[in-house]
């Protein structure tokens, strides 16, 4: 039993945090969001720090990082509300490696190849099997026809890993993003996303089918738990700081017991959520445990809602202001609470497993 990161994991997380504190402060992030919506410079830095190679197996010259290895980075990204589509890359790498398509990995590692994960469709909500986008075989080649929605990172990606339904069921396909129509927009939490339309686009079919889709989604769910823990830690820290500095009636508002107890409950929610994120990432590395991962997402979704709402409330009017990072953390946590399934979805899944 041991809840620490090992030395390598800690060093990497520390260096990512140092970089983000230096170059990804809230004001710098604001410029990125107001501009293109992602930073090529930050992405290059991520690659130089080894983050793009981290999820790639050592067999393919990466660092072979699992969910626990990625956990500290996801936490740091959560704290800084990073908008660059790193998690979609991790998901696509897992799909490519398991699916037997490794040719792109050297360019993924060096940062020149960006990948996105295109699975959700309009109206599917969180139903993993609700894939209507069709795949047809033409000779030895496959073509895809249909639409994907809210694909994080699609506008900047070079390739898309797409789920599609063929006559033999759902499988994963690799397509060139340049051949897709992408309607770009910003998500509620300021990330670059796109609705993707594929009209007879040629694709390479990956091995693995639905079990691989589920494996990738469980990995991503565990990592989203870690990211949410980072964002929740920021929300708690900044709220605690506000309680100690904001004065009303001649005293810091943190002197009021009504607020102290609410702050304590936020702190407890954070610790409970962190425990479940540890569980989810450990289990994801140990071959996957859908029940444990769903239980973690239930807790993380509940905690994200609790902490984000309380953080805004305890900041008073300032919590509503676009000017403060806490309102952006609120937006991110609102999205993370739902990403890869909200609490209701995972409650049903947990009970069914």
């Amino acid at each position, binding site marked *: *039993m*041991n*809840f*620490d*990161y*090992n030395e390598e*994991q800690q060093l990497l997380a520390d260096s990512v945090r140092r970089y983000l504190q230096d170059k990804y402060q809230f004001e710098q992030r604001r410029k990125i969001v107001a501009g293109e919506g992602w930073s090529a410079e930050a992405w290059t830095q991520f690659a130089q720090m080894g983050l793009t190679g981290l999820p790639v197996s050592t067999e393919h010259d990466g660092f072979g990082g699992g969910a*626990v290895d990625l*956990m500290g980075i996801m936490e740091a990204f959560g704290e800084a509300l990073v908008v660059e589509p790193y998690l979609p890359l991790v998901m696509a790498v897992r799909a490519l490696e398991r699916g037997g398509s490794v040719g792109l990995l050297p360019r993924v590692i060096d940062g020149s190849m960006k990948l996105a994960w295109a699975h959700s469709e309009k109206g599917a909500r969180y139903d993993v099997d609700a894939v209507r986008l069709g795949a047809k075989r033409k000779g030895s080649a496959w073509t895809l026809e249909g639409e994907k929605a809210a694909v994080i990172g699609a506008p900047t990606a070079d390739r898309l890993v797409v789920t599609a339904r063929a006559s033999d069921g759902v499988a994963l396909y690799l397509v060139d993003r340049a051949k897709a129509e992408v309607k770009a927009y910003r998500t509620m939490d300021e990330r670059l996303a796109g609705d993707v339309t594929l009209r007879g686009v040629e694709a390479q079919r990956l091995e693995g089918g639905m079990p691989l889709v589920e494996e990738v989604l469980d990995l991503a769910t565990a990592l989203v738990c870690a990211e949410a823990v980072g964002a929740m830690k920021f929300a708690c820290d900044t709220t*605690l700081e506000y*309680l*100690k500095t904001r004065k009303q009636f001649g005293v810091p508002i*943190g*002197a009021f*017991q009504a607020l*102290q*107890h609410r*702050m*304590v*409950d936020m*702190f*407890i929610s954070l*610790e*409970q*959520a*962190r*425990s*479940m994120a*540890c*569980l989810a*990432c*450990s289990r994801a590395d140990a071959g996957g445990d859908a029940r444990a991962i769903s*239980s973690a997402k*239930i*807790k993380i979704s*509940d905690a994200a809602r609790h902490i984000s709402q309380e953080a805004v409330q305890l900041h008073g009017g300032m919590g509503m202001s676009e000017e403060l990072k806490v309102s952006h953390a609120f937006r991110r946590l609102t999205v993370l609470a739902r990403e890869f399934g909200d609490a*209701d979805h995972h*409650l*049903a899944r*947990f*009970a069914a497993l």
Partner: protein
Amino acid sequence: MDLNYSAEELAFRDEVRAWLRANLPQDLREKVENYAHLSKEDLLRWHRALAKNGWVAPAWPKEWGGTGWNVIQRYLFEEELGYAGAPPIIPFGVTMCAAVLLRFGSDAQKKRFLPRIYNGDDFWCQGYSEPGSGSDLASLKTKAVRQGDHYVVNGQKIWTTLAHYADWIFCLVRTDPTLEKRQEGISFLLMDMKTPGITVRPLILMDGAHEVNEVFFDDVKVPLENLVHEEGKGWTVAKYLLGYERMNTGRIGESRRQLARLKDYAAPMMANPRWRDRLTRVEVELAALEITNLRFLDRMRRTGQPPGADVSMLKIKGTEIQQALTELMMEATDPTASDPLSDAVRKRYLSTRKTTIYAGSNEIQRNIIAKMTLGL
């Protein structure tokens, strides 16, 4: 990061499990599982069975009968006891009085009391709360006046758990009412419950059970040798005790047993998604609590430091979960059923409301975290 127990820890757990299977009396286990009343004799029978095996006071130093287990082993042991449906080890002697004596007691006091606590010869109770002093414990008024070779104690304690079983009581009393800083006038006294002038009166709670009492002191003569630590240092002792063994408050093993029982008992209700989701959320909270508890233990083991104030969250979450489980269990009973189990389940719902009030109410626990951990 590795959330699994080591092979040694699993072997230890299996050893405890096997011993419990062979030695936990069936009638006691059934009483616990069916929420039946445990008599003094029941409690002592189990205490002595553990003592005979050398397991009744794992946290004590080895020279006094402790097991030398590390924090993880002690946790596993307690959780296995709870999961197996063992009667509780009543904490007032083994956990509380003994901790105080081991830290502050004289050699003579240790020799006199510790072996009798270990063997279950003396049943102890705790004299802290008073009618006007609940959460504000330092306002206590029961006074002890020194006269020659003894103190004369006058006053009243309340909510004294199992005082009607007790041979001895440890008490916080006021030895100097003149000091401006009221914490400084408090002392820690041990009293034989048979001393003339001590009267125990039952306080019946809403479940109809007699568990707590009022204890009255009328010119009770207590020998000076029964003072623990120095006169006026009782608050130091009390604070030490509050911080001691706060790690046990989650009662996770017991809640895991209740959850399993509930799933079995209420199986047909799982078809109702509203019920299912409420139950699942409690199950998730319990899993989170278990891991949080292990994180605290891991921190203690690595740093060698005692638990911080933040472990108060184990008491808060642990008792909230206990209450949620008993509430679900009560709701799962057929409202028209009058069989003994349904009746016991309803009474348990009533009784379990005390858990968020006793041992430092959950509001006091939040005050502790706010002040000590968050710096508010």
